[in-house]
């Protein structure tokens, strides 16, 4: 997989709100990227994954709040 194909796939997953899938894809396919990402592409990937990670973190936070509220009710 070329760096452009890899980055495009990650961007498309984030753009379609498949945040966890984007993180998983980035990790699962990193070793298959040839040639390796340049430093600019690395930074670019980092910015996209930052958006995905923020969204996943928000999901986790929302789930935790729901869980806390359930515990309060119980």
């Amino acid at each position: 997989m070329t760096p452009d194909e890899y980055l495009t796939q990650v961007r498309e997953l984030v753009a379609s709100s498949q945040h966890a899938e984007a993180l998983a894809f980035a990790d699962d396919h990193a070793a298959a990227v040839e040639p390796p990402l340049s430093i600019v592409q690395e930074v670019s990937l980092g910015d996209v994954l930052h958006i995905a990670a923020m969204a996943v973190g928000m999901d986790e936070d929302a789930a935790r709040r729901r869980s806390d509220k359930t515990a309060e009710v119980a």
Partner: protein
Amino acid sequence: MTRLVRGDDPFDRGDPADDTRPASRGPLSDDLQGLADASRHIWESLAERLRFIGEVLDAETDGDIPRMQQGLGQIDTAITEALDLLGLPRGPIDELAPAWGKRYAGRKLPDCTLQINIDIMRRMSAFERGPDTTFRTWVHESIHGRQPYADGHRQEYDAWSGYEEGLAEALSRLVVRKHAGLDPIEPRDYHYFLPAYQTLSEAMKIEYEALIRALWTRPAGRVRTGLVAAVDDLRRAQSLPPLTESQRVSIARAGDLSFATVNLSRAPTRTTMLTLWRGRSR
């Protein structure tokens, strides 16, 4: 061959060989002259930034977590002092936490943890512009942390992450590049959202920096709902006609088009953006 040095123009999408061009740094702005000596040295000198980052990385290599945390804290103090002086203070952070493995360089979590990725910091330290890029990330995350996230922030972020990410990146470049004179790597992934703010301010005849500073007063998750009011307030402050109800609705719709997450993969076109915003002001 002479390379153009990139400035503040967000339409400049960078040079493919950007990672190899020499860094171009400037002096600290007058606003940052009030930094304490230790922080001033970090911001002024690449060697000093590298030294502090090196101390963090050495401590991590040695498995000395307390020393690593101390080093992170020293850099963080330089970041927060600068933000304070520039009128962009960071909000409450419960923990400055190192992270490993994941590829994102940093993130601010809803529980008020600010994560800095040590692996990425190490990788960046090998490049001339790497330490400046780490500082860009750190400031970006700190802008996210200006206030606790608003309830329901996920609704805005999921569909329109550009409101928050564009704002955080616009302000981080203001701090790191304009005021501190650093030269971080700026990849394309926020490059749709920054011009969206810039062309909005141009079309509405308001100052770009005033707009992003006004939006900074909103917590993450409330930037979208504050956009139209911020534009209107800034126009009124300049004795420009207030926006009509029809204009307000129209600008809000254009904002959703411009700051949609899906634009991550799109290239900005200045003419199209300006046309979009100018059409909303009629």
